[in-house]
């Protein structure tokens, strides 16, 4: 018995792989396992251009988004992808101090929390690495290029708007990068910042901030440059968009691309095991551009429709 225990501890992984079970990597959500036959089934399907739920390689799942879900936040959006990936993004703005090396810009802070409701392994500090990976990727892809940071400055060197974007992953079935980016874009679009004016303060030569009491007066953020992420997952020799959890289990490499509304690439993040040849990379970027622009267009349409129709809030009443 003791020999078997050590065998499992040291050579366990290798033995399980021989038996045809692939173990998940930590950067994908959850520790779901799939068998070698299932993985092969998915790969063969992708080669023929069909996935398990009948989608084509560049098709997104049906997405439902609703803004204004959280009453206390300045802006919020809940995105449900395929009925199983559920992401809630809340935006809160506060007045704070700018960074020392950027005195005339506002500050953007992105945080992601994967809740244990998505998977019991995310309890406690279980999701820490995943949270950090998502937050850092979002900051890299959205933080620097998207918002007009100079417009968030109030008094250069002393006061500026600090925008806190908090994303919560409540349920996960793959494709967290894209969901978080689309929900963030929508949440920023509906964010209402209290209107402020600068008045001379008692200390001569300095200005004070006065916040208006009227809740009907607010300023909006300019999201015309905020990008969305498109994640392309390489399965076998082809790549797919919007991978589900089981597709992520059999992926080779993955690349997340930030696409701006103008169609330019504003950030890249490669994940997963395996390498990508430069030729495939160019093909993936072109596909990402097409998909990204379509995604932005659809999101804008949905947001405008929501604004116009003003239907009652559904919230969690599914």
């Amino acid at each position, binding site marked *: 018995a003791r020999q078997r225990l050590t065998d499992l501890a040291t050579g366990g992984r290798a033995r399980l792989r021989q038996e045809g079970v692939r173990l998940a990597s930590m950067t994908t959500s*959850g520790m779901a396992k799939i068998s070698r036959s299932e993985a092969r089934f998915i790969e063969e399907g992708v080669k023929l251009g069909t996935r398990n739920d009948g989608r084509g390689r560049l098709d997104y799942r049906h997405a439902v988004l609703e803004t204004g*879900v*959280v*009453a*206390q*936040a300045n802006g*919020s959006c809940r995105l449900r992808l395929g*009925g*199983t990936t*559920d992401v*809630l993004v*809340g*935006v*809160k703005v*506060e007045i704070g101090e700018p960074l020392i090396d950027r005195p005339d810009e506002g500050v953007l802070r992105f*945080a992601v*929390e994967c*809740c*244990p*409701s*998505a*998977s*019991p392994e995310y*309890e*406690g500090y279980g999701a820490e690495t995943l949270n950090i990976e998502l937050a850092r990727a979002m900051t890299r892809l959205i933080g620097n290029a998207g918002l007009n940071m100079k417009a968030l400055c109030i008094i250069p060197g002393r006061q500026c708007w600090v925008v*806190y974007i*908090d994303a*919560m992953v*409540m*349920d*996960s*079935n793959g494709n967290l990068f894209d969901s978080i980016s689309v929900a963030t874009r929508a949440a920023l679009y509906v964010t209402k910042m209290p209107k402020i004016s600068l008045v001379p303060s008692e200390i001569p030569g300095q200005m004070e901030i006065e916040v208006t009491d009227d809740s009907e007066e607010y300023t909006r953020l300019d999201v015309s440059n905020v990008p969305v992420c498109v994640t392309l997952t390489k399965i076998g020799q082809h790549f797919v968009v919007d991978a589900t959890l089981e597709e992520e289990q059999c992926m080779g490499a993955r690349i997340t691309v930030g696409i701006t509304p103008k169609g330019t690439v504003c950030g890249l993040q490669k994940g997963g095991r395996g390498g990508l040849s430069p030729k495939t990379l160019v093909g993936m970027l072109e596909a990402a551009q097409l998909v990204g622009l379509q995604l932005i267009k659809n999101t804008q349409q949905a947001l405008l429709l929501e604004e116009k129709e003003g239907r009652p809030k559904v*919230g*969690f*009443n*599914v």
Partner: protein
Amino acid sequence: QSSMVEYVSPEGLRVDGRRAKELRKVECGMGIFASADGSAFFQQGNTLAIAAVYGPREITRGPSLHDRATINCQYSMATFSTRERRRRTRDKRATEISLVMRQTFESVLLTNLFPRSAINIFVQILQADGGTRCCAINAATLALVNAGIPMRDMVCSVAAGCIEGTPLLDLNFIEDSAGGPDLPVALLPKSGKVTLLQMDSKLSLDLFKQVVQLAVEGCHTINDVMTAAIRDQAVSLLGARGTLFTSAMQDRTDEDEDEPITSTADFGGEDPMY
């Protein structure tokens, strides 16, 4: 006592227009997440909690109890749930509430049916406006029912308090911060037993009896709301499965007689799966 805010006006209205013994508007629903074994949301006024239950599952790491299931509870608040953004989602208060919830459910779940396994209850507060631990307990109860875990009784919870000698039911954040006593109470409605009772500040004994009685009545009302929600969900599930004629089918008029009934309704001939 002089206060800037009038908590109870001379006409008997509170800051949000309620009477002293009125609950906030309750909305709840089950089955909101696909991955969890059971899930639910519970909203009391502006306080919104979502709960997910995973279990009973095998314990792969850590010690397990040989004769019953281990209950694991985690309560956390979203950073955007309060008016001022919270820096940390889990702090000492959250740990205490997790412990208190675990103790509450340990007395109610039939853990002896699942030895060596774990039942995980995860609750998130998405909006906080007073009474968060009560809302969390209610959401967790619904999630446990949604997961099908056997329980002795439902657990219904509400917080009551007392401001300037008037017992108030279901305090919101403004009333909670008034400095008066705050009593979260959790009740098992069938047996009438109280499984959670906490209090801060001070209260005279006769007022205490009134406030506890008010909270118990409030818990019974919450129980009615929860039972109705569970029943509605069960009826809609059975209707979707085709084992029950829903009222929509009963309302068919004469014009619909020529159209065939498209659902495969069964009159009890289906074999249950378990």
